[in-house]
């Protein structure tokens, strides 16, 4: 109740302030309730790569549609049921880098299940296997960039115990 009264008292004050602010150049009117909306003219259902081109004052951000490079090599599913990893190759090892590298981003992180379509259990297995492969230095292409911005020279870290060869039992 008190607050209501307080607001009522403040209301004319506010309106007076805003009226003055438009006139003065130092304080700009704050735009409120900006609605962000996605817009699309064509159907948005293909692999895309966002490209940003700056031409003078104009910056153009475009979602370019690409052709998937792995389309001809994908397994053809006879029964679309369950995840592909369970059906085809459930017992992976950390040395199967040709399979593990398919589930990775550029910086070596695992892609989410919504993209890869594996089940929860296999996702957990993939996490541990990718970790092992990274520690054994088997995935030199899939590593995060250095903080200094320099390109990597060695496939293994140069830190104390991390520079020697490592293997895992399974």
């Amino acid at each position, binding site marked *: 109740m008190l607050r209501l009264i307080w607001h009522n008292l403040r209301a004319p004050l506010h309106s007076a302030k805003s009226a003055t602010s438009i006139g003065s150049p130092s304080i700009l009117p704050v735009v409120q309730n900006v609605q962000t909306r996605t817009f699309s003219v064509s159907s948005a*259902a*293909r692999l895309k790569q966002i490209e940003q081109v700056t031409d003078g004052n104009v910056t153009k951000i475009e979602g370019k549609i690409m052709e998937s490079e792995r389309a001809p090599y994908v397994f053809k599913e006879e029964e679309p049921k369950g995840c592909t990893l369970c059906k085809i190759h459930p017992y992976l090892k950390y040395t199967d880098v040709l*399979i593990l*590298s398919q589930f990775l981003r550029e910086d070596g992180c695992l892609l989410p299940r919504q993209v890869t*379509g594996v089940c929860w259990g296999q996702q957990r297995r993939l996490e541990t296997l990718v970790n092992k492969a990274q520690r054994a230095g088997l995935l030199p292409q899939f590593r995060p960039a250095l903080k200094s911005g320099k390109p990597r020279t060695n496939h293994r870290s140069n830190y104390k115990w991390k520079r*020697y060869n490592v*293997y895992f039992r399974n």
Partner: protein
Amino acid sequence: MATQRVLQWRAFARTWWLYDAANQCPFVSAYRVVPYLQGKHKPIFHPLSDVGDHVVVINTKDIAMQADYWRTFTFFHHTGYPGGFSKASAWRVHEIDPTRVMQLSVYSRIKGNLLRKGLMRRLHLFPDDKIPDEILENVSDQIRQVQPVAKRLDQYSEEEVTEFPKFFDWPEDFVKDGYKRHMTRKKPKRRYTV
């Protein structure tokens, strides 16, 4: 009978074996190497007859340890005098002398009797593949490695990587660089509760 005499020489002659320790576990390799030093791979073996062979181990600087062992595995030593105890983790020992881890693992595999010192004298360790010619000319055969060496992804050709069967195609409406991590993002401040 000259042939009998030659057969005798051949049976009791010391043969030289080559073992490549690159990407091999030193503890598992010790199990493979020690019988050759003792001569247990021969049908004429007897503990009282000295029939052990020489083993030349190369590439000991490239040995591989399991999981976290480079950091966690420690070697202990005591001089016998008070305060003579010292220890060092495996990576530190390997840094000082790249043949030391292999030597210690073979040494600990052999039983602690009077023969051990003589057997260790017949083990020749080299950090890389550069062997003196007077040793290399004796070598007649090689010992099989204990574990397969894993192939790195950059050792495959580009064709093999692209034409390998893929487990999934990119889903509909997938932005290729959309899942990129932001490396410059600040770490969230840690809140301490009193």
